[in-house]
C-alpha cells in the first residue's frame, strides 16, 4: 500500500516536472521569438497589418506594371511609326534623287551617244550654227534622250541654245566653242537612228560636207547643270 502511494507520487512528480519543463520551454522560445522580432519595426507589426501593407504594395505594383506595359506599347507604337517615317523618308529621298537626275542637278552616267561636230577650215562649207545644235538636240529629245549636254553644258528644261550674230553660240547663257560635243543618254540605237536615218540632221550635215561623227558608248557621262534653278513666279 505504501509502495503504491509512493509509486503514484513519483509518477505525479515526474509528470508535473515534464509539464513544467514543456511549459517553460515553449515560453522561453516564445520570449526569444518576440525579442528577436522586436528588433525591426516591420516584423513587429501584426500579421493583419502586414497583410494590408502587402495588399497595398501589391496593388501599387500592379498599377506600376500596367503603366509599364502601356508605356512599352507606346514606345512600340512610336518605333513602328518612326520606322514607317524612315521608309517614307527613304522613298522621298529616292524620288528626290530621281527628280534631281531628271532636272539635271546631278551628274549622270549611262548608255548613250556622243556627237562631235568640228568646224572645217574650208570656206565653202557653212559653219555650224546654233540651229544645227538645236535641231540635233530636238531630234535626240524625240528619240527618248534622258539627259543631254553640249560641251558639258547640261540641257535642262529651260536651257537656251542661241546663235549670236552667226559668230558664236551660247548655251545656258554661256559661250561655247567648237568642237561641239553633244552627249546624250538614252537608247543608243534609237538616238543614232534619229540623227543618221533618212532625213536625219547629221546625215544632211554630212551631205553638205560638215565634219560630224557619232560615237556609241555604254558609259556616257553627263555633268550636272552648273547654274541655279530659281523659281520666282511659279506658285
Amino acid at each position, binding site marked *: 500500500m505504501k509502495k503504491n502511494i509512493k509509486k503514484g507520487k513519483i509518477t505525479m512528480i515526474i509528470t508535473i516536472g515534464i509539464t513544467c519543463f514543456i511549459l517553460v*520551454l515553449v515560453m522561453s522560445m516564445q520570449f526569444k521569438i518576440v525579442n528577436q522580432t522586436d528588433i525591426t519595426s516591420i516584423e513587429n507589426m501584426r500579421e493583419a497589418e502586414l497583410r494590408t501593407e502587402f495588399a497595398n504594395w501589391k496593388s501599387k505594383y500592379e498599377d506600376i506594371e500596367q503603366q509599364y506595359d502601356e508605356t512599352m506599347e507606346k514606345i512600340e507604337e512610336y518605333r513602328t511609326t518612326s520606322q514607317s517615317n524612315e521608309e517614307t523618308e527613304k522613298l522621298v529621298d529616292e524620288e528626290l534623287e530621281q527628280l534631281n537626275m531628271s532636272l539635271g542637278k546631278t551628274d549622270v552616267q549611262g548608255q548613250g551617244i556622243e556627237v562631235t561636230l568640228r568646224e572645217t577650215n574650208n570656206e565653202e562649207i557653212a559653219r555650224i550654227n546654233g540651229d544645227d545644235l538645236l535641231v540635233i538636240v530636238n531630234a535626240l529629245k524625240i528619240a527618248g534622250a534622258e539627259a543631254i549636254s553640249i560641251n558639258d553644258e547640261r540641257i535642262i528644261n529651260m536651257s537656251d541654245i542661241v546663235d549670236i550674230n552667226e559668230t558664236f553660240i551660247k548655251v545656258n547663257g554661256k559661250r561655247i566653242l567648237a568642237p561641239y560635243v553633244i552627249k546624250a543618254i538614252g537608247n543608243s540605237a534609237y538616238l543614232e537612228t534619229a540623227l543618221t536615218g533618212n532625213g536625219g540632221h547629221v546625215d544632211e550635215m554630212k551631205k553638205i560636207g560638215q565634219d560630224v561623227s557619232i560615237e556609241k558608248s555604254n558609259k556616257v557621262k553627263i555633268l550636272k547643270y552648273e547654274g541655279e534653278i530659281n523659281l520666282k513666279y511659279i506658285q
Partner: protein
Amino acid sequence: MIFITILIGCILGAIIGMNVPMISYTYSSYLAIAIIAALDSVFGGITSVINKNFDLKIFVTGFFGNAILAILLTILGQKLNVDIYLAAIVVFVGRMFVNLSIIRRYYVDKWLNKSQNKDKTK
C-alpha cells in the same frame, strides 16, 4: 521533492528553450495561445489542489489538450478569417483570473486565520 522537480524542469526548459533554433514569426501566435492555455491549466491545477480534488490525469490531459485545441482553433480561425484566438484568450485569461482569485482568497484566509490564532494565543 515536488518543488525541486518543478525547479529542475523550469531551469532545463529555460536553458533548452533559449538555445533552440528560431521558429518563424508566423507560428509565434500559435505558441502564444498554447502558452496561455497551458498557464490556465496550471492555475486550474493549483486551484484544484487547494480544493483538494486534484487529479493528475485530468491535469495532464487538460494541459496538453487545451494547448493543442487552442492551436487548432487559431489555425481554423485563420482559415476562416475570424480571430478565434481572441475568444480563446478571453476564455483562458478569464478562467486564469477566477482561479487566481480563488488561490488568493485561500491564502488570505489562511494568513488571516494564522494571525487570529496568534492573537488568541497571545
